[in-house]
């Protein structure tokens, strides 16, 4: 029974993280998959959401600003708004430039945000971070508490999926995909390319902020060094590429596959002893990097490529030449 509960808890934790990563992968799919915008600052937007929600919900303390004591129903949307505002500022500046520049700029913004969270002790608690964050449903008994939180995360992930899928198949989605595939043509069709790009970037980043807020409440803690920022960004990218760039179902599948592998390998490596236990995580990171390279080279469409929404125009086949002897005799 004990073991069963252990496995149950593990499965719940696994599924919760998959839900959170799926939201981030959906956000990246809106940015990169649909709009074609390169974002390497995922961890930055994630952190903005995490800190925003943490500051808004915690009770009054001297360690950081706070004391707003808002419920998560309000703080999560506000976390999304905070991430969206930062994303909007970045996008306003960099959206017209080459995609490489946007990538470097997003690395930069991620780095600056990390510095701010680390250095501005009065606001964020500095390196000690913010603890005592409340988790919804934590007062429920036993296994029901994590289960209820899991349900909440999965519901939000499904809502995000539904919205992303509606967005993809809507006229808006067709415009951003047209911009991704052929910018001059979209511009010639009278579409405001910059504005659509900014929208794509902001919506995607807001989802990353939501994922950050969920994580902060799940772990009940947020700090500048809690997780390697590069690792979050990298994992989300691998999830999207493995699942299928441009496909919302693919992004969710990729999140499930990669996070399961990532987490299950931890179970395996934690049994190793001594020196190898310290080194095993790096083997894992290397292997995920290798998976990314293999997918890019051999399976560029991913496990679940996007379905075509509009059949491509093809020249009509020439009418079948009907042999003369079956012609009706008149």
């Amino acid at each position: 029974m004990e073991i069963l509960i252990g496995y149950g808890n593990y499965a719940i934790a696994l599924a919760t993280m998959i839900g959170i990563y799926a939201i981030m992968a959906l956000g990246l799919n809106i940015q990169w998959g649909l709009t074609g915008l390169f974002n390497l600052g995922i961890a930055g937007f994630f952190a903005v959401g995490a800190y925003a929600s943490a500051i808004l919900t915690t009770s009054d303390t001297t360690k950081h600003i706070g004391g707003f004591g808002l419920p998560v129903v309000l703080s999560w949307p506000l976390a999304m708004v905070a991430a969206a505002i930062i994303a909007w500022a970045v996008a306003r500046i960099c959206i017209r430039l080459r995609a490489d520049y946007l990538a470097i700029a997003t690395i930069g913004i991620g780095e600056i945000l990390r510095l701010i969270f680390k250095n501005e002790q009065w606001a964020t608690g500095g390196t000690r971070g913010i603890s005592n964050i409340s988790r919804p449903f934590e007062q429920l008994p036993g296994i029901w508490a994590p289960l209820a939180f899991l349900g909440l995360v999965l519901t939000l992930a499904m809502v995000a999926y539904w919205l992303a899928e509606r967005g993809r198949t809507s006229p808006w989605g067709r415009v951003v995909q047209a911009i991704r595939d052929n910018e001059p043509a979209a511009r010639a069709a009278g579409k405001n390319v910059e504005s659509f790009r900014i929208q794509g970037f902001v919506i995607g980043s807001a989802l990353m902020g939501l994922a950050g807020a969920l994580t902060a409440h799940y772990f009940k803690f947020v700090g500048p060094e809690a997780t390697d920022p590069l690792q979050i960004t990298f994992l989300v990218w691998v999830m999207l590429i493995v699942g299928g760039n441009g496909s919302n179902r693919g992004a969710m599948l990729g999140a499930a596959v990669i996070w399961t592998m990532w987490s299950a390998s931890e179970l395996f490596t934690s049994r190793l002893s001594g020196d190898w236990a310290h080194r095993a995580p790096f083997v894992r990171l290397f292997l995920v990097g290798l998976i990314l390279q293999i997918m890019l080279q051999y399976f560029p469409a991913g496990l679940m490529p996007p379905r075509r929404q509009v059949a491509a125009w093809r020249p009509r086949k020439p009418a079948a030449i009907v042999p003369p002897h079956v012609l009706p005799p008149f």
Partner: protein
Amino acid sequence: MDQMLIFINAYLVPGIVSGSIYALGAIGLTLLFGVLRFTHFAHGDVMTAGAYFALTFVGLLGLHPVLALPIAMLCTSVLCLGINHFFYRPLMKRPSLVLTISSFGVALMIRASIQLLYGVESHYYVRGIQRSTEFFGTFRIVDRHIWIVCCAVVLMAALHLLLTYTRLGKAMRAVSDSPDLARLTGISTSAIVKATWVIGGSLAAVAGVFLGWDGFIQANMGWDLLLPMSAAAILGGLGRPYGAMVGGLVIGLAEELSSYPWFGGDALLSPGYKTGVAFTIMVAMLIWRPNGLFGGRVR
């Protein structure tokens, strides 16, 4: 006078030193961009690899870091050629952003390998207090700073001669200017690509060794330099090696001088935000002169 000494020793010299290191890295970044048309996100980690190659030989043979440079350059060049062969070349026909994603993955792979082999702790080439030389009977400069700046200047001069006077250099510039025209004139693009990797990798190795020599050697030191190096490359105009030299120096100096107490007692900017300076300069450039100070090859 005292103030002057502090300014030179604690701000100006470190600024020039880190500027030289950024410049060496940014040249590789900008050369690769010129020839391959993609931003090599693993360049910082290639630097780290160079620093660790040198560390291995410094540890094994007890060499002076400067003597370990050629070996580190060789090993890093081989590493770069290998990465190019296995990871980038198969993606050449795809959009350049796919290469960028791949290079991001390569960066993590190099870093993971280094952490696997050497662990996460910091290493040093030389321990203990460093010798310094006195100038004009007033201020002292640590010997390794003189080495770093002199080596960087020599290497940049060598690169200038290579680009201006040799067939290889001219071919590289031709490919960078117009890949199609260069191919028409019979220049072998794949040979140029390899040569660019060797040059870029070697310079990155030198930058990595200098960075490790000036501070300590750690697995994520290279990635942390990617931002200032990119800023330097963008400042000079992507694809322009001379621009990258100037850009590196400007970024290095700006970072150090930004924490000098220009107005009264306090530092102008808390040293914790040093990285932000490079970013701010880069963003300002992207807004007002996206082609760089001297005009980049491509927008």
